[in-house]
C-alpha cells in the first residue's frame, strides 16, 4: 500500500511526513508540478509555506497541477490528510469547510498541544475512541480556524487551555461530510517516535489512514 506525500516549493515537513508514512506504508514523493499521483492509495499534504504563503495561506498551492489530481482523488473517496499548511490548502481548495486566519495574537507559536478526539467517523481517527487525548506539536502563525462547519465534521478540538490560536469552538481539525478528507493544524508527523516527538500519538492518525486505504 502506497501513501503519497506532496512537496510544493516552500514545503518543509515533507521529509518528516514521509518518515511517518514509512512506519505504516510505502511513502511516495509527489511533486507539485506533476499531476500524476503514481497510483497511491492515499495522499498527505504536509506543512510548510507553499509558494511563500503569498496572497493568502494555501491560496496559490491550491491551483498547482498536483492539486487538480488530488481534488479529483478526494472527490472519488480517496483518503487525503492535510497537515498545517496542507489543512489551509484543502480549505482553499474547497475540499474542507472554513478557513484559517492569523493567530489571535499574531505570533508564530511552537508548542506541544493536547487534542481531544471528537469523531471516529474518519479513516484517520478510526484507531481512536471519542474523548481520547493526543499530545502533538503545533507550530504555525495562521491556525485560527473559522467556518460554518457541522459539529459532526469536527474531528479534533484543542483540550481546555490549549487553544492558543483563537480557533472558533476550539476546533483543531475538521473533515469533509464523507470523512475521507481531513485537515488539522497540529503536526502528527512530528509525533511518531518517543525519542524525538515527546509522544507517538500522531502515528495513530497515519495507522488509521493506512488501515482504511488498504481496505
Amino acid at each position, binding site marked *: 500500500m502506497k501513501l503519497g506525500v506532496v512537496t510544493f516549493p516552500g514545503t518543509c515537513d515533507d521529509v518528516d511526513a514521509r518518515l511517518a508514512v514509512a512506519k505504516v506504508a510505502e511513502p511516495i514523493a509527489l511533486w507539485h508540478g506533476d499531476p500524476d499521483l503514481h497510483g497511491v492509495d492515499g495522499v498527505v499534504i504536509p506543512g510548510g509555506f507553499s509558494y511563500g504563503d503569498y496572497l493568502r495561506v494555501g*491560496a496559490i498551492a491550491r491551483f498547482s497541477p498536483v492539486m487538480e489530481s488530488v481534488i479529483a482523488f478526494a472527490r472519488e473517496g480517496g483518503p487525503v490528510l492535510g497537515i498545517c499548511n496542507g489543512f489551509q490548502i484543502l480549505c482553499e481548495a474547497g475540499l474542507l469547510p472554513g*478557513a484559517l*486566519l492569523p493567530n489571535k495574537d499574531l505570533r508564530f507559536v511552537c508548542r506541544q498541544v493536547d487534542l481531544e478526539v471528537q469523531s471516529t467517523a474518519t479513516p484517520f481517527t478510526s484507531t481512536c475512541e471519542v474523548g481520547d487525548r493526543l499530545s502533538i506539536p503545533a507550530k504555525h502563525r495562521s491556525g*485560527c480556524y473559522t*467556518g460554518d462547519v457541522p459539529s459532526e465534521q469536527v474531528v479534533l478540538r484543542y483540550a481546555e487551555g490549549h487553544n492558543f490560536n*483563537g480557533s472558533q469552538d476550539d476546533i483543531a481539525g475538521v473533515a469533509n461530510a464523507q470523512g475521507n478528507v481531513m485537515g488539522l493544524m497540529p503536526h502528527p508527523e512530528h509525533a511518531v517516535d518517543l525519542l524525538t516527538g515527546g509522544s507517538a500519538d500522531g502515528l495513530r492518525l497515519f495507522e488509521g489512514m493506512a488501515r482504511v486505504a488498504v481496505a
Partner: protein
Amino acid sequence: MRARVLIRPKAGILDPQGVAVERALPALGFGGVGNVHVGRLVELDVEDESQLDDMCRKLLANPLIEDYEIQTVTAS
C-alpha cells in the same frame, strides 16, 4: 484598464491585525481611534475587465472570510 482590488476582512471575522493597530495608535498618543481593519490591496492591468469579479472570487480574495471591492484606476 488598470484596476484596484480592495480586500478586507468580512464583518464579524476576527481581525487581529486591526486590533493590534487599534491598540498601538493610542500608545503613540493618537486618541479617538476605533473600528480599525487591515486588508490588502491588489493593483493590476487587465484586458477584459469582465473577468475581474471571477478573479476575485477564485484567487484574489477568499469570499468565506473576505469582502472585495473593485475600483477602476484608469479606463483603457
